[in-house]
């Protein structure tokens, strides 16, 4: 009997400790609900915690290869070409720029990106500012950022002496949701993200950018380059 008393006292002492813990949270009736597992406020997730988790998922997908990695495109800006004796550069000066995780489907983003190819930068900004789609305004911001980068960091001389040689929009990842139809039928909804890649080069745009790839000479060149790029895997 004496042991039972001690046990009951211990039990009460533990419970009293729990009750005192729950008092400062607020209302008095929460003491009765002390047996329920309540999440503290520190365990709630902010926007930044969610973003960190999602970015970790995206990094893992990039590592596995199911999403294109976003690092290699701006690394082309770090290549340093040696100076030549003539003074003419080995390669036409260029700038790579991109924007990733744009909340816009890549299928729609591709249309203004196609329109821009081969245009000078002034013409492109004019056309995009009066375009119907939302993605065109996003592309315009990216082009202006790339123009600033080129002038400040890559030693381009004139703001309007640039043209666009490469621009595409590519799928990156999708978030899935659910919607309800007429009876107990459900449907899947996808919220899509894309990336947009751009390359600006210095100079006047070539006159027949779209038609260059269609001549017999150009197609023959591409075919020969493809054959010469091949390498034997695991060779000495």
């Amino acid at each position, binding site marked *: 009997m004496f042991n039972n008393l001690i046990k009951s006292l211990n039990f009460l002492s533990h419970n009293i400790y729990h009750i005192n813990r729950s008092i400062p949270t607020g209302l008095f009736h929460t003491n009765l609900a002390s047996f329920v597992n309540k999440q503290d406020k520190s365990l709630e997730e902010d926007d930044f915690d969610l973003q960190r988790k999602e970015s970790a998922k995206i990094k893992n997908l990039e590592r596995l290869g199911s999403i294109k990695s976003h690092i290699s495109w701006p690394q082309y800006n770090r290549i340093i070409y040696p100076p030549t004796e003539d003074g003419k550069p080995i390669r036409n000066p260029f700038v790579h720029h991109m924007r990733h995780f*744009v909340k816009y489907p890549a299928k729609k983003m591709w249309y203004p990106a196609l329109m821009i190819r081969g245009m000078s930068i002034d013409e492109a900004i004019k056309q995009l500012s009066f375009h119907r789609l939302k993605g065109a305004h996003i592309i315009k911001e990216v082009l202006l950022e790339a123009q600033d980068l080129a002038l400040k960091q890559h*030693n381009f001389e004139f703001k309007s002496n640039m043209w666009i040689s490469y621009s595409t929009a590519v799928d990156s990842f999708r978030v899935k949701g659910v919607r309800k139809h007429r009876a107990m039928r459900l449907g899947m909804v996808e919220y899509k993200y894309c990336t947009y890649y751009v390359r600006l080069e210095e100079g006047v745009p070539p006159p027949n950018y779209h038609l260059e790839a269609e001549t017999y000479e150009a197609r023959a060149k591409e075919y020969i380059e493809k054959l010469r790029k091949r390498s034997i895997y695991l060779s000495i």
Partner: protein
Amino acid sequence: MLSIINKRNIFLHQKLVKSLYEQTLTRPLATHWDPKFRRLRKNKFTEPTLLDFDSNTKEKVKRGIEPPTSFIYKPINITSSKEIFDPYIPPEGDGKASLFSKEFAKGAVEKITKSTSKKFKHLRLIKKSDSNFDENLFAETAQQIYIDAHSILSKRDPEEMLNFVTENALMKMYHNMKFKTIRWKWIESLEEPVVKHLVTREMMVKTDLYAQVTVRIHSKQILAVYDRFGRLAFGSDTLPKDVLEYVVFEKHLSDPYGSWRLHDKIIPSWSPAKTPVIRSFALPEPYKTDDELEKRIVSKFKGDDSHLEKIQEEKS
């Protein structure tokens, strides 16, 4: 039918209600033709947990979200200071042919009186760690350090450069040099290098001592800076130029592995203008100084030479 008493209400209600045709002119493209059941239609979809990658941290802070805490502890570097103690003010007209002008004579007189009173005490502190410290010899070794540091710049290796250059100077030399190629050549020295100023200071603790020495170097050099693509951006590869500089060398005296290294350069206001950059560019916006930041930056070095008084006490 509404009664005649509520004529005013009829008038107001007509403006608020738009016809379907008027609604089609102003609403966005992707909408249903009948907006009556808009809110019920919204309830069919689950609320997606979409994240904004587009908004910046500033906009989020305005909304009330705290920025993420960064657990990167930046390392503190004790081997070099970030400033010049008691900067040497070079006299005007130093590198020009007319040495005996009025301005030069005035400047020379002023400088001699200020420096001799405490120069020997500073020298004594330096000789405690370096017993073989001679001013004339040091000027020549300093010039050699200067040559080594600039010739290694083109290799783009910061770890090698730290043997000849302090962290403060590496920041300034290496930052704009990353994506460019530099060709630098030393041709000859036009005048002997001269030590002009000696200062020692102690950091928070009494045993920490740093020494700085300014050396005057007059030389001929070639500098050519090339672009990322190999185009000439500044200078020339063949024409040499006369260069007058007041270079500051620093050493951490209380460190057994410390050595004399290039720390900073003093550019006087009367120096001739630099040659312009080859390409044309738009002037950037004027540099705005952060007044609040500058108030917070407090140097850990004392501004006095009060540690020199103890040398007299030890003697006596």
